[in-house]
């Protein structure tokens, strides 16, 4: 083992410990940069040591939930995944996770790598990790000020995948059949194993497209795609009326489905291994996709349905994604949403709870959230206003969030705008009756900040301590 690698890993561990003491957010990329600063090839060297190889999960939404679900299944199967949790999904974050999961000589303590990877970073990550399996959840218009246009992103991802196929022909790819941009990512060629997941059951679909859609063009001939059913956003069953290109048949399909509001759903998965039932303990159709992706990935890794079922049923919510937190005799349901489609799904799900909802809406515009907050006008907050009892808007763009709710139909007098998140949290809890539920819908960095405020108030333990307690 090289001295340079050892030094970089030691430095990385020290940096992580320091980060935690300073209370740096769980999504910090600092430790990883320290490692790479000393040994620029640390990532590929450590990744190559894992006896069972690496799995990469990418896409706009659902990376964290899907990889956490898969991690739960892998652990149930007796494996020890090295996993970059807490959404640190750039190269530095993956490196930090590997350093944390390795001994001082850079040898991994785990046996399989499981990394969620930011879409724009995918080509670079594939090159360094040489994964045995790549999962892509979906591609949505998200943070356009960072990525420019969706199509060029798709092309870059495609090329990265093709390059991986050139280097290892046994690499497997699992794609979302319901997303027209993702479904064709494996076509640049050479991959022997391309599998798909998707929803077959149409009971929760609608006819026609939601307005906030993208990717509605045929990737072959450019004509506008026709959808026979839409699940959410631009996810659905589609075909090209011009050239006949159509949605691929999913290998891992939700052949039957029952949604149960915030409790989650029951899904029958039809697969090459036969049919089996899974319980998804997080809400919304988007989480059905996440569960299908995790189940499909596990199956492709050779794990049998019984273990997949047990792993998923034991799965508890990932950081900031529909977490239930007890606070001063109330329950906070904390849900991260980053973009219109995600937010619309969340609104649909929480509206099922009925009644007059207590809402805490946190909007930030840091780089990780997207500097441009125009997207909030693409979200159907009108549906949320219809079921809103009290609204507290907070975050760096608290006023914009409050304004959106005003135009969505909540009377201005019923909207509190409190920029300081701690104060907003306290006020929103006070506005919630005892035993009641406060729904906190937040953007990415606002989730981290709000969780910090909850930490300060003793509602939650530090995230990494909760991880260690698993």
């Amino acid at each position, binding site marked *: 083992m090289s001295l340079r690698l050892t030094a970089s890993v030691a430095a990385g561990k020290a940096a992580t410990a320091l980060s935690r003491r300073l209370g740096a957010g769980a999504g910090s990329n600092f430790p990883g940069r320290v490692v790479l600063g000393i040994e620029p090839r640390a990532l590929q060297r450590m990744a190559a040591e894992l006896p069972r190889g690496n799995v990469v999960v990418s896409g706009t939404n659902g990376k964290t939930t899907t990889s956490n679900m898969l991690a739960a299944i892998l652990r149930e199967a007796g494996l020890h995944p090295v996993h970059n949790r807490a959404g640190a999904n750039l190269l530095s974050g993956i490196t930090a996770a590997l350093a944390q999961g390795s001994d001082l000589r850079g040898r991994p303590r785990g046996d399989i790598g499981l990394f969620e990877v930011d879409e724009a970073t995918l080509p670079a990550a594939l090159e360094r990790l040489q994964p045995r399996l790549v999962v892509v959840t979906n591609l949505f*218009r998200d943070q*356009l*000020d960072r990525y*420019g*246009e*969706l*199509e060029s992103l798709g092309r870059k991802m495609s090329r990265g995948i093709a390059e991986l196929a050139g280097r290892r022909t046994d690499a497997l790819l699992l794609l979302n059949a319901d997303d027209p941009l993702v479904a064709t990512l494996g076509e640049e060629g050479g991959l022997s194993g391309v599998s798909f997941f998707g929803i077959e059951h149409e009971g929760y679909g609608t006819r026609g*497209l939601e*307005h*906030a*859609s*993208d990717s*509605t*063009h045929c990737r072959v001939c*450019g004509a506008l795609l026709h959808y026979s059913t839409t699940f959410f956003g631009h996810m659905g069953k589609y075909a090209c009326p011009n050239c006949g290109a159509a949605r691929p048949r999913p290998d891992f399909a939700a052949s039957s489905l029952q949604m149960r509001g915030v409790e989650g759903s029951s899904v029958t998965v039809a697969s090459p291994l036969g049919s089996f039932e899974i319980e998804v303990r997080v809400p919304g159709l988007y989480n059905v996709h996440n569960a299908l992706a995790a189940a499909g990935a596990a199956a492709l890794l050779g794990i049998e349905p019984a273990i997949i079922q047990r792993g998923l049923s034991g799965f508890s919510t990932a950081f900031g994604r529909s977490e239930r937190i007890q606070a001063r005799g109330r329950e906070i349901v904390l849900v991260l949403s980053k973009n219109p489609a995600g937010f619309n799904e969340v609104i649909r799900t929480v509206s099922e709870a009925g009644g007059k909802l207590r809402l805490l809406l946190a909007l930030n*515009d840091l780089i990780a959230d997207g*500097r*441009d*907050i*125009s*997207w*909030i*006008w*693409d979200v159907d907050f009108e549906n949320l206003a219809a079921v809103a009892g009290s609204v507290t808007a907070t975050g*760096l*763009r*608290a*006023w*914009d969030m*409050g*304004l*959106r709710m*005003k*135009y969505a139909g909540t009377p*201005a007098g019923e*909207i509190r*705008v409190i*920029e300081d998140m701690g104060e907003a949290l306290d006020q929103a809890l006070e506005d919630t009756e005892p035993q009641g539920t406060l729904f906190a819908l937040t953007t990415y960095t606002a989730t981290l900040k709000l969780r910090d405020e909850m930490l300060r108030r003793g509602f939650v333990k530090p995230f990494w301590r909760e991880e260690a307690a698993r």
Partner: protein
Amino acid sequence: MSRPLTICHLYPELMNIYGDRGNVITLRRRCEWRGMPVEVHEVSLRQRIDPDQYDIFFLGGGQDREQVLVCQDLLEVKGEALRSAAASGACFLTVCGGYQLLGRYFLTYTGETLPGIEIFDAWTEGAQERFIGNMVIEVTGPSGAPLRGVGFENHSGHTYLGETARPLGRVVTGYGNNGVDGMEGCRVGNAIGTYLHGSLLPKNPWLADELLLAALRRHDAGATLAPLDDFMEEHARDAAIARSLGHKGIGRRNR
């Protein structure tokens, strides 16, 4: 006015890249809050329009591919009607790609020319530098006093105004039309083009009301608009301006 104030939302499923429909939401609500009857018609590809049926036309921004489709449709189907509406004083609010399409042409980075419908004496050239970031502008308000507007720009088209075109406003922070002449947007009569997303109108209600009043006055020269309580709008605008002035734009970068 004998009929409801009628808004034409053009190509809503194609030209809605970044929340621009917030402008239509704002116009509609500000009518509803005043008890003014209002209707929004969504009009898309291949549908012909009767220019006299509408008071305000809205066209948002879109991705490149969508913009080409819309360009074709404007040339073949709707262009004449829209030009006629503009000439008779109908209001237009067009954002980003929509703004570009109302000019004389768009010369893409790869050298193709997309003709516009020539409501604005302006043209756009696709460049390698993309202008992204918060933008604050200053305009002369209806009373003559300076007013600030705020939003977010994201465009690689650089727009230049011809002799007969006036800008919407002066750039206080941001890049504006072309990053060189310090001007943003274009205004010809009641037709406005802008690079401001945000959406534009919610934080800049004075502009929404200008458009609504202009629409009303086409039918009744003495029409007035009841004032609304814009406390939230003004705070949101001030907060956004403060944030924009504290933070520079994300900066130029290559495509």
